[in-house]
């Protein structure tokens, strides 16, 4: 265990615009945390958060990473991407607000629920964004 209590970090590179494999990393995160033996409801929350974060990277950025940090009492999903960033975070946090293109909407995403969903299922939600990218840290107590 590290000095900050981190037990293990699972990291996954996420490719922008590749919808054929989008969701695969969240699927792997889900299997990994399932193997640890956490309550199914909490696993579901983590999977949803990770999947929304992964789809955001695929849709809106030039690529990035999803990390799943395992601690004794919590799991932290860290989403970091390089890309244009979010100009107005408050707007982006509003349910229904989206900047996604028509072809993304055809895939069933871009309904403006991604960030609100991530916040809804989290115990703590932090977001930082500037013109070179976005970092989101979402904590789920276990």
């Amino acid at each position, binding site marked *: 265990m590290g000095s900050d209590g981190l037990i293990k970090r699972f990291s996954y590179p996420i490719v922008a615009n590749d919808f054929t494999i989008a969701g695969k990393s969240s699927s792997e995160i889900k299997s990994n945390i399932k193997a640890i033996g956490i309550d199914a409801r909490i696993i*579901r929350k983590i*999977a949803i958060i990770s999947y929304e974060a992964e789809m955001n990277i695929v849709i809106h950025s030039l690529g990035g990473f999803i990390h799943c940090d395992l601690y004794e009492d919590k799991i932290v999903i860290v989403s970091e991407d390089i890309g244009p960033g979010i100009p107005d975070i408050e707007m982006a946090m509003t349910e229904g607000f989206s900047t996604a293109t028509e072809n993304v909407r055809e895939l*069933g995403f871009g309904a403006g*629920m991604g960030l609100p969903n991530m916040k809804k299922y989290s115990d703590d939600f932090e977001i930082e964004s500037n013109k070179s990218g976005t970092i989101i840290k979402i904590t789920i107590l276990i």
Partner: protein
Amino acid sequence: MKIVEIKEILNAKTLTANCNEETEYSYGFASDLMSDVLAYATNETMLITGLNNPQVVRTAEMMDISVILFVRGKIPSKETIDLAAENSIIILATDYIMFKSCGLLYENGMRGFE
């Protein structure tokens, strides 16, 4: 409602081999917006959708949803069906439109999750 009954009511086919037709579902959630499924559905529901791509299965997988009904004659690709089978998700398909599918299921006792 058992899968075998759902199939009969909707004149639906099973596209995955892993199907126990005696499994029962009491709730349905109908949407083509996967983010809404992630926000509002529960693991006990049957996902009813006309959206046809692998993200539908991924969404169900994250939610622990174990059955997906594709409406409007949508037949998912082999990759989508394989992904469902890998995750023990049953896929059903009907030619009926979403409104008719939901109406028939409701009439026969299926409900939305409150």
